[in-house]
């Protein structure tokens, strides 16, 4: 992670080229082209049903778009399966938390490293040599870096199913970090969180970029968070990108306001809402 990271500090880490995705007659993505600069925090915003999660799924390999290509670190990964993409450094979290219920926090996090371990069945049975070394290294890194960093030391042996929502989100982030990601995709990292939890998460996201050197692409509805921490904002509506740029520029974009508020007669409530967004 140390020296490799510098070699490709420039240029987009992820490129999505002219990607379209339809489910029957429903066009979820129309000709979407997108770049995520290495080292950036890029936010993907848009009204409900705009195609944000579809785009996420297309990038992480869960959906197969009908047209278009995806490049990761310059490599065409269009044909790779989701597990293969995870292996080369694309980690993600889910809008509706996807944790392994029934397993403990520590086991959940360790599973993030699953794809990187080389131990074979026979070696594991004897638990000597490589498996032992791998397990020790994994433990040390997870304990020292990830668990401490995300401040979840006190719950490491708790079953994840019983944890409050905010903590589950944090465990999901921890598992994604254990995957040694180079691009971390967060699907609504603060959805359903209160202000304090949101601020904690914002701090973690910023620190992940600073300390791990991980590029971040996130879908988020919390506009204040998006404006505060992202470098680049991309706005989707009806499967199309309608605006992109610096947070402040996007905020002033009329088409974006229309997408969020509807294009009809602007009533007093809507005007208030616009004023609120502008005030942020």
């Amino acid at each position, binding site marked *: 992670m140390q020296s490799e990271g510098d070699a490709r500090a420039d240029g987009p880490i992820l490129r999505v080229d002219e990607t379209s995705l339809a489910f029957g007659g429903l066009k979820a993505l129309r000709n979407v082209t997108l770049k995520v600069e290495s080292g950036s925090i890029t936010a993907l915003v848009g009204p409900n049903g705009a195609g944000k999660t579809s785009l996420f799924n297309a990038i*992480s390999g*869960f959906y197969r778009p009908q047209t278009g290509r995806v490049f990761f670190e310059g490599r065409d990964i269009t044909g790779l*399966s*989701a*597990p*293969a993409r*995870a*292996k080369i450094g694309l*980690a*993600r979290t*889910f809008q509706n938390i*996807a*944790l*392994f*219920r*029934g*397993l403990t926090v520590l*086991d959940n996090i*360790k*599973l*993030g490293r*699953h*794809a*990187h*371990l080389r*131990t074979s*069945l026979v070696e*594991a*049975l004897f*638990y000597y040599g490589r*498996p032992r070394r791998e397990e020790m290294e994994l433990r040390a890194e997870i304990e020292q870096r990830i668990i401490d960093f995300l401040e979840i030391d006190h719950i490491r042996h708790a079953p994840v*199913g019983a944890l409050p929502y905010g903590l589950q989100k944090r465990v999901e982030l921890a*598992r994604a970090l254990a*995957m040694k990601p180079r691009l971390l995709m967060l699907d609504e990292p603060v959805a359903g969180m209160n202000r304090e939890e949101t601020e904690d998460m914002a701090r973690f996201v910023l620190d992940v970029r600073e300390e791990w050197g991980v590029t971040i692409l996130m879908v988020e509805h919390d506009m204040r968070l998006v404006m505060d921490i992202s470098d680049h904002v991309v706005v989707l509506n009806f499967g199309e990108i309608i605006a992109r740029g610096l947070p402040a520029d996007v905020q002033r974009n009329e088409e974006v306001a229309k997408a969020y508020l509807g294009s009809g007669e602007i009533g007093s409530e809507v005007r208030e809402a616009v004023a609120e967004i502008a005030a942020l």
Partner: protein
Amino acid sequence: MSPAILDFVEFSLAGLCVGALYALTGIGFVVVYKATRIINFAIGEFMMMGAYFFFGLAAQAALPNWAAIVLALIAAGTVGGFLERFIFRRLIGESAISVFMVTIGLASIMVGLVEIAWTADPRSLPTFLPDQPFFVPLGSAEAFLASKNGWSFIIVAAIMAAFITVFRFWRGGIALRATAADQAAAYSVGINVPGVFSFAWILGAITAAAAGILVGSISGISSAMGAIGLSVIVVVIVGGLDSLLGALVGGLLIGWLEAMASLYIGGEYKQVATFVILLLVLVVKPYGLFGTHDIERL
């Protein structure tokens, strides 16, 4: 030592040995269910298939017993993997009932194929277990335990121990548990989910085949031996469909209860006892003794 107590102990021992075989077959069921959520109603026929493979290789092809066992298990695993790849993987996303019906059809097809290949006549398997019976000291008397039963129990115990070790320490075991818990999450951390499905079917088929060879060596084989599958289904429902421990405890429990029923009520009623237990468990603990409660959304 009164004969009544001696009877009780001997029947109990024999029952637990049969129960161990139920447990082993139950594990073959649970592994598949855990990973894929498929209810494999053909589990008894998977046992039968393994037993006939062994019969064909040992009695007809005259291979040494150890080689016939290894080859029969490999053949059963191949069939399991093949069925997953070409039938069950295509049914992903179909309703649970449709897939269940497919396994029922599969059971009939397997019986038919065995009858075509080996006819429906009962046969006995070559003996490969020592024939020295066990005598368990019991006060002044000794309880008798047939050799095949005793050895089956020992072999099953060894296989179980291996299973537990593997699932505890090997990351493939963890991958299986993770896939069972959340497929999308498993995909996202780089677990090869279709690979896990194949693995589960191969392992399930091998486990059932091993049980089939042991059952066949105790009581002979016939194309109808898959009926044991009914008791096994009861075992896994009692134990909890997705619990390895449940299959173990449920197997021993049902095996023992059937032995008790045949001792005190009569052999022809032992299935009645089994299904009474099934009814009781379904009423009192619908997820089985050790099963995961599915409705747990907060």
